[in-house]
């Protein structure tokens, strides 16, 4: 019989493998507690665990995520999770530098998960994105972690959503930065509260994608490089016209310039906050968690697994009836149990 449980139920004891006789395993629950207490120094170790595929690490990661789940917190994690995405070269990192500085000047702690576009070759990757975000290295309330995008341009790294969920318990703002246009923002949208798509003057592709419906209208549109003058004014007008034609004229469009003196940053921060304030947060997060769990399940068990659940639509319907506060790993396990009992 096929087992749909993702891994054996490993508890405290584990058999050391031939490969890793002496490897230390971090205590997931402890790390989760520290994050819940806003101990930002736990962030790196927490992500090491979440990124790991070793069975005992995964077990600890589940324990960690349970500690920061809405059920454990008694509410949704307080951070504002923001997605910032857009084509390469539009100035996302400069923009992020200014935004981070803005948030820090208001005493908000910030974590950035930079999903690096450099595609994996030979399994390896080059991650250089963090360098482009200027921060004070001694500021312990800014945290930046880069991960490789995986095989697809702009795709989220497998652990990025879980990482965002964990950091959201500790930081005031969690940013997921991705590169791409046309698809990446949809994927990011499932992982964050607010999506900002960044474009620059004369980037016609974004306009075309919007018009053609390839790209969904984001929560906030950001136009960079407005120091370019007439080209920027024109681009602004084009964007507004496109949004009007799509019946989305109330979508916030922010014009910013990151070259000194930077302009429009406070307004953008405000627009992001306003979107979040108007949001039914528990609903958005719950929907995201369920989608996320189903996706993970599908990756792990494929078509066969989905069929055992009666198909994707059936599975979604079933998930909607589950406890709204369940974290992703718990939902995943529930799906696996259900597949097993039905299969």
């Amino acid at each position: 019989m096929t087992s749909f449980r993702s891994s054996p139920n490993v508890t405290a004891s584990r058999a050391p493998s031939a490969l890793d006789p002496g490897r230390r395993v971090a205590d997931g629950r402890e790390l989760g507690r520290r994050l819940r207490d806003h101990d930002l120094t736990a962030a790196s170790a927490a992500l090491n665990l979440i990124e790991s595929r070793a069975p005992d690490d995964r077990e600890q990661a589940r324990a960690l995520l349970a500690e920061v789940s809405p059920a454990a917190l008694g509410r949704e994690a307080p951070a504002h999770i923001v997605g910032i995405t857009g084509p390469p070269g539009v100035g996302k990192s400069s923009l992020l530098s200014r935004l981070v500085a803005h948030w820090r000047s208001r005493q908000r702690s910030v974590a950035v998960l930079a999903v690096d576009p450099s595609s994996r070759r030979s399994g390896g990757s080059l991650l250089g994105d963090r360098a482009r975000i200027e921060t004070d290295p001694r500021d312990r309330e800014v945290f930046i972690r880069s991960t490789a995008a995986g095989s697809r341009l702009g795709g989220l790294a497998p652990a990025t959503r879980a990482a965002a969920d964990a950091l959201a318990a500790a930081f005031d703002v969690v940013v997921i930065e991705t590169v791409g246009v046309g698809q990446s923002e949809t994927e990011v949208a499932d992982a964050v509260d607010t999506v900002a798509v960044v474009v620059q003057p004369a980037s016609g592709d974004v306009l075309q994608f919007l018009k053609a419906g390839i790209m969904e209208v984001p929560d906030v549109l950001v136009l960079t490089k407005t120091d370019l003058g007439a080209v920027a004014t024109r681009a602004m007008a084009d964007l507004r016209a496109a949004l009007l034609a799509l019946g989305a004229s109330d979508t916030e469009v922010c014009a910013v310039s990151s070259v000194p003196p930077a302009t429009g940053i406070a307004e953008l921060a405000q627009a992001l906050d306003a979107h979040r304030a108007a949001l039914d947060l528990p609903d958005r997060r719950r929907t995201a968690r369920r989608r996320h769990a189903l996706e993970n399940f599908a990756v792990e068990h494929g078509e066969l697994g989905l069929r055992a659940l009666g198909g994707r639509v059936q599975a979604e319907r079933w998930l909607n009836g589950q406890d709204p506060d369940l974290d992703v790993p718990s939902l995943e396990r529930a799906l696996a149990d259900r597949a097993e009992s039905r299969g």
Partner: protein
Amino acid sequence: MPEPPSHRLPEPDRPWMMRTYAGHSDARRSNELYRRNLEKGQTGLSIAFDLPTQTGYDPDHELAKGEVGKVGVSIAHKGDMETLLDGIPLDQMNTSMTINATAAWLLALYIVAAEDQGVPEDKLQGTTQNDILKEYLSRGTYAFPPGPSMRLIADTIAYTVEHVPKWNPINICSYHLQEAGATPVQEIAFTMCNAIAVLDAVKQRVPQELMGSVFGRISFFVNAGVRFIEEHAKLRAMATLWDELGRERYGVEDEKHRRLRYGVQVNSLGLTEAQPENNVYRIALEALAVTLGRNARARAIQLPAWNEALGLPRPWDQQWSLRLQQILAYETDLLEYPDIFEGSKVMDGLVSELLEGAREEMHRVAELGGAVEAVDYMKASLVESHRKRWQRIESGDQIAVGMNKFTSTEPSPLTAGADGGILVVDPEVEAERVRAVQSWRAERDQAAVDAALARLAETAQNDHENIMPVTIAAARAGATTGEWSQTLREAFGEYRAPTGVGDAVAGGSEDLAEVREEVERISEGLGRRLKFLVGKPGLDGHSNGAEQIAVRARDAGMDVVYEGIRLTPSQIATSAAQEGVHVIGLSILSGSHRELIPAVLDALREAGVADVPVVVGGIIPEADAAALREAGIAAVYTPKDWNLNGMMRDIISLVAERHGLQSAVGA
């Protein structure tokens, strides 16, 4: 009188200008060195500045730590410049300054120092390197973003053409492109594209009737490798293209203005640490590349020293290289003939081959919008060429005598001395310089400095005003290098150049496949992919080595965090902690490893990641290497460790060991 035969010149040519790239510690010590060099028959000066001066920081700035007076002289204000040039008559001297981001400032200091000697600016002769694009591509001593940097260059050109007419305001460099791995075609094409970008920017700032003289004042700084026949052809090809550009793109009518004028420092990339005495031959052959053919002969030459891959050259090492130039010019018959390659089928064939390739490449850059827009493309191309070069050396397809072939050797008496055959800068210099700049600031007329810097800030914001007059005024008032630069950093913003590593093509060899398998196996044991931080602490911008390590580690299957140059120890430690890396590699070539490496180790401890193993690569003398290992560095690599896969094996087994895993490879 009989006609002289066509195979002889009526009288021998005058020799080229002979210089030595020199300077270290402070102005007083460097002044002594210059006077001695001039006594030895050197005919011009070539000033090497230290990295803080080149990147616009005063000796007491955090980023200057460990770098003050190391690779050149520290010049912080007009007082320093006056001391540096004391007793050297500036109306007669021809001075080349290797200075780029802060070129406008150092030129201003030079002008003010000349004033002090009673020499008016229109009598001054010399060159400011002032080529920013190659700093983005290779050398790394940039300070401001491309737009404002191009404006500074255009302003110095516009100013000198009018007020310092015998000055070469810019020396467009192909030199550093070759050091970064450029093929001859890339070297020619990228240099010409760079020149076009500069000229197009100047065109906006000078009246059209001056464009002829502007074109005539542009000079080049080239490289010559050991393949000296092809290298000579490269220079002939450049001369052809330059003449063409002047005529066709800029309408320069005077043929004299369209002549390619270039100075040269021959190749350092090919100099080896193994059997370093062999480098003397390499340098001699490379000198032939730039002197053999009269139609494309260098105007000024400086030669590296035999021991550059070991550390900083001593005065004696530099003298040895100067003597080579003098033998070539005064003992051989080189200067008695017209061009010896005219009519040579081989030379013509090589030139047209290079021209064809270069034109194609120039077209590609033009399509991308010109050199400024194409920095990413050019950088990635260079990293890729360098990667291929390295692979040829590793596979043995390219022979480096004494390094990857003919390696059995007697011990070299040249490095047997107590100093190991290199110059060691007095460690007291930095502290002295810090005190000196602080007392300079305390003693000057602060109100005058503040007013001058305020004017500078205002001018920076006003694109239509030339920045040179206010820069000269600030120099006169006693402002410092750091203050001038900081004022402009605030106005223009800071910049990080592309690293070029992201686009490098993955290489493959059987040997690498084995390494890759091991990375997979160890990563499996670690639970996540082996993550490697490659960092360049300090101001040193020579990133070619670090880039090649990063690319190879990526090709071996690691997740590599590479953030480019100029990182403080605390930046590196923060990255290591936040990124959760398994191992750290640091690269330093400026000789500041003795200060910077311990500073990084301290910062790692403070960030709570003291258990992450650290390896170091660079130009590091053995005595220092031993001290570094003592301080906790896991391994030290120098230019003799040219086998990158071997280095990867070491790194993997190091990580395996720290995590209690069994490694199948490495030491």
